[in-house]
């Protein structure tokens, strides 16, 4: 009897151990081109945020690109088809990432570059100072502070801002250069904007896909800027261009709701949507925008770029001059 019971116990144990994949369902890993295409198309269909705004006919795109697939096609060929399909979204927050290649839409490269750092540091600035994530200096003979912030991935510290604002406390104002700043951590945007705000204000809002229809979005979530603990109250000019993307577009949109800040340069590159990431059945990764950044009245122009208040272009035929910086200096006259 005891032996029988032991056998029963161990058989029961054997049955309940080690069988998770049977319980979890079939392994979906596959290199089949159709399975990978359909998975990616479906994920984008369910969650991408700019179909309507960009008038993208996603069903037609499926028909067009799926017809290019065939059984046994190579991985590079499949990558090319999937990347071409994603590029129809015209969105730099959309990428396909394989071990051998990364697809990019390259919006900034489709416009003129508007920033040449050597021109600024050699021809305009007395002395370059590095304070935390910022490079700054006094513009020669103008009594204006120049502050360069190259990426929102770099932390914004109040202590560093305090030092910089004190340095230019007696200046006529500062020029904050965000050209070619490709974005980064969106939480740094609120911190930097608050350094120019004496009171708490709403500067925009976010909506995120929350259903299968292309028009399904969550209710707006506010984008609030706090009153800064350190605030620069003199005039501020922000330099932007097509390379000012993602978090920098967020910053530029935020300034539209704040008095005393002027945008100079070119329209930002866009990137108003937060990209989420995922993986395909063959192991490649992807990302695409799942939200929209709206201004105070609900307009969603941020994806195509925030326009400057004063338009200016860099002239590459004369690298001794930065026409955008010159235009910014003129606003203080």
């Amino acid at each position: 009897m005891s032996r029988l019971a032991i056998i029963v116990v161990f058989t029961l144990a054997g049955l309940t151990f080690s069988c998770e994949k049977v319980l979890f369902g079939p392994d979906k890993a596959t290199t089949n081109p159709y399975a990978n295409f359909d998975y990616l198309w479906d994920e984008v269909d369910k969650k991408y945020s700019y179909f309507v705004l960009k008038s993208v006919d996603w069903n037609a795109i499926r028909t067009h690109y799926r017809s290019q697939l065939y059984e046994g096609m190579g991985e590079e060929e499949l990558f090319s088809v999937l990347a071409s399909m994603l590029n129809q979204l015209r969105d730099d927050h959309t990428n396909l990432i394989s071990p051998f290649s990364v697809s990019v839409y390259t919006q900034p490269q489709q416009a003129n570059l508007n920033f040449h750092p050597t021109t600024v540091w050699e021809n305009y600035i007395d002395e370059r100072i590095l304070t935390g994530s910022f490079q700054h200096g006094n513009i020669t003979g103008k009594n204006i502070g120049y502050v360069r912030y190259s990426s929102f991935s770099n932390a914004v510290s109040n202590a560093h801002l305090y030092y910089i604002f004190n340095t230019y406390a007696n200046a006529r104002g500062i020029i904050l250069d965000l050209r070619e700043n490709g974005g980064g951590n969106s939480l740094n945007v609120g911190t930097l904007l608050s350094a120019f705000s004496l009171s708490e204000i709403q500067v925009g809002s976010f909506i995120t896909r929350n259903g299968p229809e292309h028009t399904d979005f969550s209710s707006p979530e506010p984008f609030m800027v706090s009153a800064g603990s350190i605030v620069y109250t003199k005039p501020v000019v922000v330099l932007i261009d097509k390379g000012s993307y993602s978090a920098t577009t967020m910053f530029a949109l935020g300034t539209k709701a704040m008095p005393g800040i002027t945008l100079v340069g070119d329209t930002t590159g866009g990137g108003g949507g937060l990209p989420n990431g995922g993986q395909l059945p063959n192991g490649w990764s992807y990302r695409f925008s799942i939200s929209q950044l709206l201004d105070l009245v609900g307009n969603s122009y941020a994806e195509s770029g925030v326009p400057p208040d004063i338009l200016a272009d860099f002239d590459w035929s004369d690298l001794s001059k930065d026409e955008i910086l010159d235009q910014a200096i003129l606003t203080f006259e």
Partner: protein
Amino acid sequence: MKDSRKLFLSVIQLNLLVLLFHCTINANAQSDTTDRSFLLETSGIRSTYRDLATSPLYYTGYGLSLGLGWDWKKKQSESSVFFDLSGSILRSVSPESNLIPSITRSYMASANFFTEYLRRIPLQNNRWRLFLGGSSNLSLPFRYNPSLGNSALGADPLLNLMGAGRVRFDVSRKEERTFSFWLISRQLVPVRRYFQLDLHAGLFNFNYRPGYAYTYDASIQGNDTRLLNYYFDNYKWSLNGWRIQTRLSFFRESQTGNGFQLFYAWEATVAKGRFEPLALAIHKIGIRLNVQRKPRIK
């Protein structure tokens, strides 16, 4: 968001109440019939998970787990509380490639808080003991998969109120014996030994899973944006899915009640959430030390 947070806090409070219940009933128990042990455990683990919200691939890997707890054993009931932390490094189970394989890594850390209470079911056979009761398990598995960009972090609190069963088969040496083999001769003292099979099955399975888009553009409250609030925006509690835990152990105790157990444990969880499910399985093989707080004097 606020409702979900309230519910989450309620669930934590429920677990603390269960712990308080354990402490109360055991503190009030007759001390002379209660074996109270401090438990210390270490094990090697093999983890597997698949979060269909971000990837159709299974991730599998190895790691370590450390835990401590207390248990109370009486003639008619047994209970325990246990807390463990584990960490493992996993890689995707990707299909073959003719170029470069897409192997991506993920890192998982998990905290678990477990309580159980079991009542003995009378049986005619002295070598067998059967217990039935309930248990609760609160798990916080954190996963980090850098290849997923803004969806890299996965954190899904799981709470399971479970039915529990325990079968124990006694193989104790009750009398002193002499062991002799060739030139070796040893006196073997009586020792308590038994095999035990534990089975826990979720009856009420709660999980706190992401919303439709997984990653959300949550509100930004200037400098006061709280990262946890930002991350968990649009997470919702759901009552669905399932969880099973099994554990096969061999116990050896000295006459003082101190001892150890060698065990193999397995658990599988599916947290369906409201959209795509998370499936998680862990195999553990390890040793648990039982230290009597009041050793028996025989």
